[in-house]
Structure formats: structure tokens, C-alpha cells
């Protein structure tokens, strides 16, 4: 889901830079004001970074990896999760050139904001209804990554240089990640069910 340079129109890229940096800065303030711990933040960011290095093959010559936004949001809360995901994306972009530097705002919007906050909301909602951690984590990981992919599809579809209209980018990205997201959901559910070190 890491958008490279050259895919987004300057307007889309710039707008999402402004939105993402604002939300990440606000999340950082809220996380630390509410007593958030630097250790958990660092370890979560490093864990997400390491997990995203595990690309597994998908038939057809392509690959997928865990995104981890919902997991970060559930374990650290949405503000800490947002900050941890952004830290990981920033290191990937600056050190490894993974995700375009002009698309960092969009990548942060999709993976550090939409995936995290949607995942957290889904988790809380399902927990309130069922009280089952695995189920809540599974649905959060699965559905939030699909929502983030749809957002990514909207951004690509709104960018003329990408060459495909919204009518193609949104269903393709959404359907693809709805299928791939089952693995994300399974991993999120299993981890959330076993890790109890944050709220």
C-alpha cells in the first residue's frame, strides 16, 4: 500500500501532507499528555517496521505484507498508534526509499491515520458488543486495512497521472485488500488476544 513518487497529483499529495502532519502532531500531543510511554511507542514502531519487511508471495507475481495500523491503534490507543505508524513510515521512506517522499503524507493518511483510527473504532465497537478480543482484533485488522486501501484507491483515482479512474482504483484496491486483509485480521486477532501490555 506504499504509494511511490509520481503516482499522485501535486494537489492530492500536498493536501494529504498538511492533513497528515496536523493529525500526527495532534496525536503526539494527546499521547504524551495522556501519559503515553516512549518505550511502548518506540517498540511498537520498530515491531511494525520489522513485520512489514516480511513480504509473502501472492500468486500472479506480486506480494503482500502486514500493515499493522489496527494493531498499533488497539495496543497503544489511536493517538499512540498513529504516532508509531508514522515513525515507522518515516524511517521506511527516508532510509529505504520505501514509499515516495512526495507521497509520505498520503501513505501516512492511509496507514497511520485511517487504518489506525478505523481499526481502533472497529475493535472498541466489537468488544462492546461481544467482549471477545480475538474476534474484535480480527475484524479490526481485516476491515480497517480494507478501508485504508479504499482511501488509497480514492487518492490514486483522483490523480490524473495514475491513469486509472476512481471506478477502477477504488474497487480494485478495496477488493484486493479485503481478501489480503484476512491475514492481517488473523495476525491482529491473535496478537491482541495474547498481548496485554497496553490498552
Amino acid at each position, binding site marked *: 500500500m506504499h504509494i*511511490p513518487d509520481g*503516482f499522485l497529483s501535486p494537489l492530492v499529495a500536498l493536501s494529504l501532507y498538511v492533513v497528515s502532519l496536523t493529525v500526527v502532531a495532534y496525536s503526539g500531543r494527546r499521547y504524551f499528555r495522556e501519559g503515553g510511554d516512549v518505550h511502548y511507542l518506540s517498540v511498537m514502531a*520498530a515491531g511494525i517496521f520489522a513485520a512489514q*519487511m516480511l513480504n509473502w508471495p501472492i500468486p500472479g507475481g506480486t*506480494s503482500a505484507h502486514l500493515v499493522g495500523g489496527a494493531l498499533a491503534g488497539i495496543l497503544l490507543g489511536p493517538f499512540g498508534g498513529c504516532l508509531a505508524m508514522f515513525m515507522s513510515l518515516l524511517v521506511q521512506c527516508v532510509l529505504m526509499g520505501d514509499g515516495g517522499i512526495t507521497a509520505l503524507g498520503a501513505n501516512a493518511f492511509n496507514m497511520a491515520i485511517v487504518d489506525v483510527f478505523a481499526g481502533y473504532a472497529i475493535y472498541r465497537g466489537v468488544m462492546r458488543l461481544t467482549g471477545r478480543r480475538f474476534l474484535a482484533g480480527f475484524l479490526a485488522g481485516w476491515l480497517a486495512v480494507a478501508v485504508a486501501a479504499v482511501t488509497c484507491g480514492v487518492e490514486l483515482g483522483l490523480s490524473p497521472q495514475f491513469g486509472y479512474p476512481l471506478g477502477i482504483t477504488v474497487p480494485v484496491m478495496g477488493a484486493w485488500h479485503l481478501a489480503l486483509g484476512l491475514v492481517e485480521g488473523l495476525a491482529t486477532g491473535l496478537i491482541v488476544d495474547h498481548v496485554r501490555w*497496553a490498552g
Partner: protein
Amino acid sequence: MKMGMRVYWLILALVLVSPLFGVVGAGIVGYHEPLDLVAGMIGLGGGNQVWRGLLPDYTFPGVPDVVGYALSGLIGVAVLLIPSILRGRRK
């Protein structure tokens, strides 16, 4: 709340096995990131890349790709753990 050392070992293990997925498997099966494939299809190649990174595509100068992938992963993890290390020292 106390975080055990297990989580650090887990992260280290993830990075050390990652070349099996990111380099060896990719070489054998021939897979790429989905959006990289799309870039090739629509002619948006690496020429559009504004910033290639200090360790481009998880490589490290002068070492084989498998080692470079793990090494760049270790560097990334170390950078992300800096805030935690600094905070620990201040306590």
C-alpha cells in the same frame, strides 16, 4: 506495566528471517510490491522517484542482498528504538 525482553528478541527474529521473504523468496518466485508492478504497467518507473533513500530498497553497499536486507532492517529498528534508549538513559 512492564515490557519484557521477549519483544526485543521477537523484533530481532523478525528482521533476521525477513530476507527469506524479502530477498530469497522474491528471487525464487519472482514477486514484487503490487504498486511497483502497476508502476511498470503504466510507465511510472523508478525515474519518478524523488528520493531513493540512504539504504535504497533495503540494500546495503558492498554486501550481498540477503545480508543487506537484514542489515538495513537492523538499522531501521535501531533508529526507531533511539527514543526508547534515550528515555531509558535519562531515568
